Every structure is written in C-alpha cells, then in structure tokens.
C-alpha cells in the first residue's frame, strides 16, 4: 500500500534530533515500552500472526494517528489490532480492561496476494527493474524505487516468506531470496539528492530483468 509510513524521500521534515554519538539514554524510557515488542513476539510465538502481519497492522493505523503516535505505542496498537482481528481478544474486552478507548488500526482493504509467477533468479551484476506495481495490501519495497533500474549487489543465501502473502496471513506466498539492489541516487531523485547510491533489499517477486 502507498501509505504514509512510506516516508523515504519525503521532504519538509526538520532536523534529525540527534548529534553523532550523543546520549540516547536507556533502551526503554517507560516501563510499558517493552510490551510493544514482547507482546508482538507473543503473538508470533503462539501462532496468532506473523511479523509481516504486525508490520501491515502498524501501516494500517490511520495516517494522522500513525504520524503522531510514538514508536512503541504504534506496536502496542498493531499487536492489539491483530489480537482482535484474529479473535484472541475482543475489542470490548480490551477497552474494558483499559477503562477507556483503545482505537485500533483501520481494517485491511486487501486480502493480500500469492507469490508472483514466472519469477527469475538474478546474479550479482545483473540489471533489474522494480516492477511498476500498485497494490493496496502489504508490500515491502519503498515507493521511491518503483519502476526504477538498479544493479544486483548481493543475493541472499536464505529465503523468507513473500511479505505480500505473509503480511495477510496467507500461506500461498512461498519463500524467496532477496536481492540487495543498488540504485544510482540520480535514478531515484534526479539532481535533488546528495547521496551516491541507495541499496534496497528486495524480494525476488518485486524484480524483473532489464535486457
């Protein structure tokens, strides 16, 4: 989905609030923060949902809600959304236990999709294009590389479930290697960039060969 979470290349943000090697404090600032992670791992361990589904649930938080919600809180909302969607808890139970409103992410607007047919295997040095793909479900490529041409730098020796399927709890996505594809920054952002290149880690199903 083309959601507001896909922030790369967006302009208008101010300075990064950090100085190199400046203090960052403890891992968790508040006592509840670890729950954002430990409860999503509970869901994965108990087999309620996949980590890809968690990513998708967080992306489905209403755009303004997403952008004004601190990081760990987004994962609490994502985990809660999936616990309710999977029937582990009801929203009423959750709000009763909270003693107040507990708004969840918005419902998915896509059922996901299976693995792409007719994928190709690429080698280091191959030129590849990211498919000119538009899909309302979960994907794991940033929009800035859609339709762009880059060069394969690395093919992983392991494979992982295809996110567009796994992110919707589907089992028909199979498993794919990913490719570290290097794009000239100019291919992505013309002359409005000071990067040399950007390397994106892309599932095989997102790529096609450039002759």
């Amino acid at each position, binding site marked *: 989905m083309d959601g507001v979470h896909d922030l790369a290349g967006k302009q208008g943000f101010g300075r990064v609030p950090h100085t190199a*090697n400046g203090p960052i404090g403890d891992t968790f600032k508040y006592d509840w923060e670890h729950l954002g992670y430990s409860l999503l791992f509970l869901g994965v361990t108990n087999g309620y949902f996949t980590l890809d589904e968690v990513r998708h649930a967080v992306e489905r938080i209403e755009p303004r809600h997403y952008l004004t919600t601190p990081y760990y809180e987004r994962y609490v909302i994502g985990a809660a959304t999936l616990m309710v969607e999977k029937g582990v808890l009801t929203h009423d139970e959750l709000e009763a236990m909270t003693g107040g409103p507990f708004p969840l992410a918005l419902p998915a607007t896509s059922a996901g999709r299976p693995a792409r047919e007719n994928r190709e295997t690429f080698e280091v040095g191959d030129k590849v294009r990211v498919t000119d793909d538009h899909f309302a479900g979960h994907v794991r490529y940033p929009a800035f590389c859609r339709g762009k041409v880059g060069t394969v730098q690395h093919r992983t020796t392991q494979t992982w479930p295809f996110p567009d399927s796994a992110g919707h709890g589907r089992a028909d996505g199979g498993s794919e290697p990913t490719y*570290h594809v290097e794009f000239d920054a100019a291919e992505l952002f013309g002359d409005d960039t000071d990067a040399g290149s950007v390397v994106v880690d*892309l599932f095989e199903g997102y790529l096609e060969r450039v002759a």
Partner: protein
Amino acid sequence: MTLAASQNRTGLPEQAPVEDRAWALKNALDAKGLIPAGFNEDWKKTFEEDYTPRRGAELVARAWTDPVFRDLLLSDGTAAVAQYGYLGAQGEYIRALEDTPTVKNVIVCSLCSCTAWPILGLPPSWYKGFEYRARVVREPRKVLAEMNTELPADVEIRVYDTTAETRYMVLPMRPAGTEGWTAEELARIVTKDCLIGVALPSADVVVEHPNT
C-alpha cells in the same frame, strides 16, 4: 488561555493513556492464560542486557585486527557473527558493509525500524524517527553534517535501506591514532552510531554507556 502541544488537532482519535492501553493488552491476554510465565520479562531482559552495540563493536575490533576474520565478516557476515553466538531475533542474516576511503555506508529502515538488534542493540529513537527515515535516503550528506559528521566531498555516500530480512552493520575504517591498540581497546571507540554509519570512529571518542 490554555497551552498544549496537542490542542485544536483534527483527525486524531480519543484514546486512553498509552500505559493503560499497553498494560491492558498484556493483562487481557494474561487473564486468558495465554502468556507463558516470564515471557515478557525475558524479552525485556534480552532487549536491555543481551542486545547491545558492544557486540557489534567487538566484531569490528576483531576485523580491524584479524584479516582472516575481516574477510569472513565481509564475505559471509552471518557465519562471522555466528562464531560469536550473536545471531538472534532481527539479526539472523547479517551483511557487513565495508567503508573505504571513497565510500561511506549508512543504514536506515525507511518503512519501519528494522535493525540488527543482537549486534547493534535496539535502534535509538532518532533512528526510528520520521526525520531520519524521510531524509537520509535522499540527502544523507546534509543529514550527517547536521549531526556533526562532515564527510569529504570525494566520499560517496551509499545508503542501505533495510526493507527485508537482511540486517546490516557498518564496518568503518580504523581511525588514525589507534596503532598498537588491542581489540578490547579498539572496541571501546566503536559506538552504536558508528555501526549505523552516522558517526566515524575516533581515537578520542570512548563509549561510556552500554547502549552506545
């Protein structure tokens, strides 16, 4: 007149305080007997105590002092990290990115916050922040300069966007002034920011806190 960061905002839902919501989620699951004893506490301990950038620093220092290990780290990061027993959740397939006199590597996760947790520690707030996620892919030189990391114009910046399951660590160049240092001494100048790629190691900057 009232003052608040948040008044007069539109489009935001009413919600209970986050601590109430977070604990309610845990307690509701607990009430159904769905949480094994110590499950959350064990993760918390793992995050706080086991996953630290001191591990990544140890790998870098070893690579700086052991050419064979360096080659392994660069050719098969996963195998190199496995030798130390440092693979783990969100750090199961590792690639180390070699800085050179003309290439500086920088890591981001623009879509969420993916990071090599077991060897870099959990990502800091600024890394997960929208400013970094939005800007560093497009204007890394400016972003690094604003963070006080000025790079020479002839050094090209290569940004790695962590969009799948590979987890990266930067292998920075060993700085001048560290000749003859032991691996233990070297590890103390490799900060979390060096491993992410937004800072350069310096003989003068020594880590004070386990999370940096």
